[in-house]
């Protein structure tokens, strides 16, 4: 791998060899790569299900697969994408790799725990895969009772157990990050000198710590009810199915911010690096992350406006939902303002960042529409909701993930990827994405319910557009797969700072040495100080 040019330099990738050196590694950078492998596999499995969903929906009659199969497809699509791909994606891959580098530490606070988290993640994933190969689950990713506890004839417990196990991985990762960010910062690196990605990860970790345990008990209760036939949520046995929904969304609404906050952190890094400018309103952006994490816990009831929850609770949750939008707006406006008078390059990561801003805004604004009570009555559980969350999760969170991957790939592997192909695929993803999901807003307002395997004929045109878009989108996702793998062997070597960005991670070599820094860094300036850097360069 490294015998090609120049003297062989030791770095974390070639420090030791052999499978065992990877499977027993405690180096956060290697663990990040282990996660990258797992996550990519789950993404493509989830994507494969999406392809089948879109194929089925190309025609109104439910003719390609049986209804039961279709129900399994969207359930496993949702489960794979949310729990096994998006929630761990940025934290476990980029967060793991970058947090110690960005704060000038040798590793996370608990490296062994970090490795254990990966094994727990894989174990949870194996359970879910096992359930999948045995026939899957058909409850929807939301596992609503009493369907999931009493009526479904599928592998509910195995899948739920997979998610339960995975939850520990998520909790432990969050715990590790919080301790690391509190206790391991380099001398001089005060909170307000931290990169915003670190702030975002910190906020994310808080949600993982405070929310995930509630999901864990909820899953236990579902499993207990299903296994032992005791009534916990089943009204036939004296339970209340709406209580399940409360407990589920207490975790799962904040969880959507687990998915998007890290992505927002990445975007802050990308915008500053490619505008070569300190971010506009640093403190506001930093605190917005925390505000989103905290307020995110107060709004879960907006998923239950028509669930027979009390009308007054609905009003309270709608009111509170409006507050989450404000810190999100602050972020969007600050990113935009950062571009003003910047020095903007159109490198591939920046394309993703710009795409993120637009698509997240659309997704977020439609989210606000959903939290408006009068509208949600009509569009709840229709394709409007499906469009909303794909705009944020695919158009937003995944754009951030891919942008980040393209940005730090040279740091991670020490190689560059082909510019043309990367820009082409970014464009394809953007176009394909909008074609797939924009028609779904229209479908939703028309009244097409979600989780429908067959639908009335008048919805077909828009569905065909959506399926066509998904094809473009799918190919758009395959291309990076190919050139990333290609670049590891044939890519041009990257310098330690190929983008001319500031940040501690760019001050060490690409790829970094096992202990991250040859000299332990100290910090005496703010984040994103491009002006100072330019002056230093002029002096030099």
């Amino acid at each position, binding site marked *: 791998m490294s015998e090609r040019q120049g003297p062989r330099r030791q770095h974390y990738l070639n420090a030791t060899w052999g499978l065992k050196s990877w499977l027993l590694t405690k180096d956060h950078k290697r663990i990040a790569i282990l996660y990258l492998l797992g996550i990519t596999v789950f993404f493509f499995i989830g994507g494969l299900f999406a392809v089948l969903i879109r194929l089925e929906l190309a025609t109104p009659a439910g003719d390609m697969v049986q209804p039961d199969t279709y129900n399994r497809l969207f359930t496993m699509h949702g489960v794979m994408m949310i729990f096994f791909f998006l929630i761990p994606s940025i934290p476990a891959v980029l967060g793991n790799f970058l947090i110690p580098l960005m704060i000038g530490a040798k590793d996370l606070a608990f490296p062994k725990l970090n490795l254990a988290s990966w094994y727990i993640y894989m174990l949870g994933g194996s359970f879910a895969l096992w359930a999948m190969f045995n026939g899957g689950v058909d409850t929807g990713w939301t596992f609503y009772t009493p369907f999931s506890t009493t009526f479904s004839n599928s592998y509910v417990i195995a899948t739920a157990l997979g998610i339960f196990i995975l939850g520990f991985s998520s909790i432990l990762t969050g715990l590790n990050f919080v301790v690391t960010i509190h206790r391991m910062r380099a001398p001089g690196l005060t909170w307000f000198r931290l990169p915003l990605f670190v702030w975002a990860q910190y906020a994310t970790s808080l949600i993982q710590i405070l929310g995930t345990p509630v999901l864990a008990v909820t899953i236990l209760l579902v499993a207990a009810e299903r296994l032992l036939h005791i009534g916990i949520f089943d009204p036939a046995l004296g339970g209340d199915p709406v209580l399940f929904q*409360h407990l589920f969304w207490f975790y799962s609404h904040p969880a959507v911010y687990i998915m998007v906050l890290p992505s927002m952190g990445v975007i802050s890094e990308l915008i500053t690096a490619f505008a070569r400018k300190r971010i506009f309103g640093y403190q506001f952006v930093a605190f917005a992350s925390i505000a989103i994490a905290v307020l995110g816990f107060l709004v879960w009831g907006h998923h239950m406006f028509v669930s027979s929850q009390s009308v007054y609770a609905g009003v309270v*949750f709608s009111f509170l939902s409006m507050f989450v939008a404000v810190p999100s707006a602050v972020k969007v406006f600050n990113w935009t303002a950062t571009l003003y008078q910047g020095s903007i390059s159109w490198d591939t990561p920046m394309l993703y960042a710009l795409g993120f801003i637009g698509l997240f805004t659309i997704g977020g604004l439609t989210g606000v529409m959903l939290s408006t009570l009068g509208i949600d009555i009509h569009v709840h559980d229709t394709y409007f909701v499906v469009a909303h969350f794909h705009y944020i999760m695919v158009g937003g969170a995944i754009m951030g993930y891919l942008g980040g991957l393209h940005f730090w790939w040279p740091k991670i592997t020490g190689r560059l990827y082909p510019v043309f192909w990367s820009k082409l695929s970014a464009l394809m993803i953007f176009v394909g994405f909008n074609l797939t999901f924009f028609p779904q807003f229209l479908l939703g307002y028309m009244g097409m319910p979600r989780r429908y395997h067959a639908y009335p004929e008048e919805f077909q045109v828009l569905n065909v557009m959506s399926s066509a878009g998904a094809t473009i989108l799918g190919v758009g996702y395959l291309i990076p797969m190919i050139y990333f793998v290609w670049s590891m062997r044939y890519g041009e070597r990257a310098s330690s700072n190929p983008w001319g960005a500031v940040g501690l991670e760019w001050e060490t070599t690409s790829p970094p040495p096992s202990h991250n820094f040859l000299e332990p860094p100290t910090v005496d300036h703010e984040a994103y100080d491009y002006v100072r850097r330019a002056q230093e360069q002029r002096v030099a």
Partner: protein
Amino acid sequence: MSVHVTPIRVYLLIFGALMVGTLLTVWAAFLQLGAFNDIVAMAIAVTKATLVVLYFMHVRHSTRLTKITVVAGFLWLAILVGLLLSDYFTRGFLAG
């Protein structure tokens, strides 16, 4: 960093208080207080838990960060229960 060593006397004192609290809560459970029974029982439990947290778990002599962490834990639990009850308490208000 100096480690604060709590003297044995304090531990025994707290233990005594917890025992008294246990007896008290059993005794109070049989008083006819109506809805106040629940409140008294919970108040005693909270007091006991606070003593354990502050002294057995040394939070009284811990860093501010630890204190914040503990408070956050209970605060979030309060959020869960509070907003949950906002539904259950107002069900059926809008009947007819």
